[in-house]
């Protein structure tokens, strides 16, 4: 299949990161309570007890300071059933989601109920918390709820409160999301050309500028459909020296990331400049692509390992002034 008629490229993509969240006085106390297998609610000026707790009174808007313990048993106010639990949910086997009003609270908490089968779920059913074996001060210290008619499972048996520890002030909430990223037709042609060692730009039908990669022209709002082959050598328009180490870094600092305006293109691309000391890189420096071994080529700009100085005289500033 030729490049022009092939379907868009797509690939799986996983995004994962941990949020570290500061808690403040109310949620900090709530999480500290969970670590001790206790549930705290907040009492607002109207006398209502909220679980999960509120940080501010919705009537007076004053900070909530009155925290009270409620029971770890409660009543299901509404429910549904999950036949195929999704990644990250409290249980890996089918379970019920429920809005649960804990005994002593006036509001409901959303959590999972390990009921075994949907036929056991009903509004008004009594449930109790099942605790994680090693609570740390996190909402998931409550592993799930279970029907209160059953005998308590081992983990939910009340244990002696652990020795007093520093209050919980932060929590970590991991995020993991899976996607399928799909390139546009133009990007796909660009990436397929890269896999053949070619750099394919697109010319805007209105302003005649050549974009690399081809895209919708940001000045005219129209696709740059006319394909233009661009050379793999060009001029450094601007650059930075990376001195800061960070997670996932592949090169030892200091090294240079530059904007390179390839000959024949009207927009620079971003890449590494290696092959000379970082301190020698300068605006106007002429550079050429250093391609990896052909066997390593794929649909990625990483086919070019980096750009290196060519030794040509520097390009005059006028030749790239529009890019600054």
């Amino acid at each position, binding site marked *: 299949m030729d490049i022009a008629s092939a379907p*868009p490229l797509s690939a799986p*993509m996983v*995004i994962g990161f941990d*949020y570290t*969240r500061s*808690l403040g006085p109310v*949620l900090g106390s*709530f999480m500290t309570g969970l670590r001790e297998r206790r549930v705290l609610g907040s009492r607002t000026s109207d006398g209502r007890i*909220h*679980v*999960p707790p*509120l940080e501010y009174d*919705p009537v007076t808007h004053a900070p909530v300071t009155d925290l009270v313990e409620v029971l770890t048993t409660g009543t299901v*106010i*509404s*429910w*549904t*059933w*999950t036949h195929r639990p*999704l*990644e*990250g*949910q409290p249980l890996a086997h089918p379970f019920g*989601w*429920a*809005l649960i*009003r804990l005994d002593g609270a006036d*509001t*409901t*908490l*959303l*959590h*999972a109920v390990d009921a075994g089968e*949907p036929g056991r779920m009903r*509004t008004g059913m009594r449930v109790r918390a099942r605790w994680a074996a090693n609570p740390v001060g*996190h*909402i*998931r210290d409550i592993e799930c709820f279970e029907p209160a008619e059953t005998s308590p499972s081992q983990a939910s048996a009340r244990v002696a409160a652990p020795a007093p520890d520093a209050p919980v002030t932060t*929590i970590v*909430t991991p*995020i993991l*999301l*899976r*996607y*399928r*990223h*799909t*390139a*546009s*037709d133009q*990007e796909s042609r660009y990436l397929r050309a890269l896999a053949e060692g070619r750099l394919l730009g697109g010319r805007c039908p209105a302003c005649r500028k050549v974009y690399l990669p081809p*895209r*919708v*022209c*940001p*000045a*005219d*709002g*129209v*696709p740059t459909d006319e394909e233009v082959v661009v050379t793999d050598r060009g001029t450094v328009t601007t650059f930075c020296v990376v001195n800061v180490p960070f997670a996932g870094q592949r090169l030892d600092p200091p090294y240079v990331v530059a904007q390179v305006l390839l000959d024949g293109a009207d927009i620079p691309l971003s890449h590494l400049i290696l092959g000379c000391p970082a301190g020698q890189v300068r605006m106007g420096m002429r550079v050429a692509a250093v391609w990896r071994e052909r066997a390593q080529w794929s649909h990625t700009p990483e086919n070019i390992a980096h750009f290196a100085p060519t030794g040509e005289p520097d390009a005059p500033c006028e030749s790239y002034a529009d890019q600054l």
Partner: protein
Amino acid sequence: MSRQRAVAVVGFAQSPCRPEAGTTSGVETLVPVFQRALAEAGLARREVDFWCSGSCDYLAGRAFSFVNAVDAIGAYPPICESHVEMDAAWACYEAYVKILAGEADTALVYGFGKSSAGELPRVLALQLDPYVTAPLWPDSVSIAALQARLACERGILTERDMAEVAVRSRVDAAANPCAQVAGATTAETLLAAPYVADPLRAHDCAPVSDGAAALVLAASDRARELRDRPAWIAGMAHRIDPQGLGERDLAAVPSARAAAEAAGVAGDLDVAELHAPFTHQELLLRAALGLGDSVRINPSGGALCGNPMFSAGLARIGAAAEQVMSGRAGRAVGHATSGPALQQNLVCVLEAEQ
């Protein structure tokens, strides 16, 4: 409130709702939508004073997607642009205020989203309270089911009522070329299907849709120049309920009721386009907005027949405006929702005369 200026919808276009629309960026989807919306309004791209969009990076897992989307505008020389991390109906509100304030005479509002790139019900868990709710990853369908059961057990609606909403929506969607789900069916057929999340079945849930929409707004005389029969915005308001799902009455939708009152929904209405991603939510919204039986609900088929995230709410305003601009309605309402279980609601009242 007395107003020096009036604001009207003068153009609307949307892309077809598709289960999978290719490119993740949204730019390519937006280009033809902009062209059609501007052509309908008789406005050139450079004549747009203000651009405002709604989208969310989490949807496609792509950082700064709204900045990339600006390519579709052609943002050179520099333009006046803004963005909301919500359905573009809220961008429409921002543009409406901008025009009322005299800072712009025309605006193009757009929303886009590729819901199919990720696992939508999980992605939407991230809009929940990040301390005590989102870490459990409750999916959007399960949360809607908790609301539906409350409404059923309180005697507000039945599973058959919900199925009949789906039937009517699909029949109406047959005339909508942008719809993703359409066609004749019966409540009996739909009710024979298994539960997805008890008491919700597949027909109770909007499909996962990719798509985009754009709306053109103009002020007073400019609107009259551009269009014989603009859809004047008689009132627009939005309200929000508490974040905690257990902190509000899920079956009453207080924020929708308050927004409808503030926008001035009361009075004779011909059409209401309600942004209800679940069948039971349409029924709850009808009650919250106080819509009588004479009001035609969702002649477009509604979000149940195509629910492109971040433009489905804007498309409801656009579809209501089209009813007015075409002369099929004299007074119409467009509604949008955002957040879990109808947490946030926006209501826009559109009229033929101003």
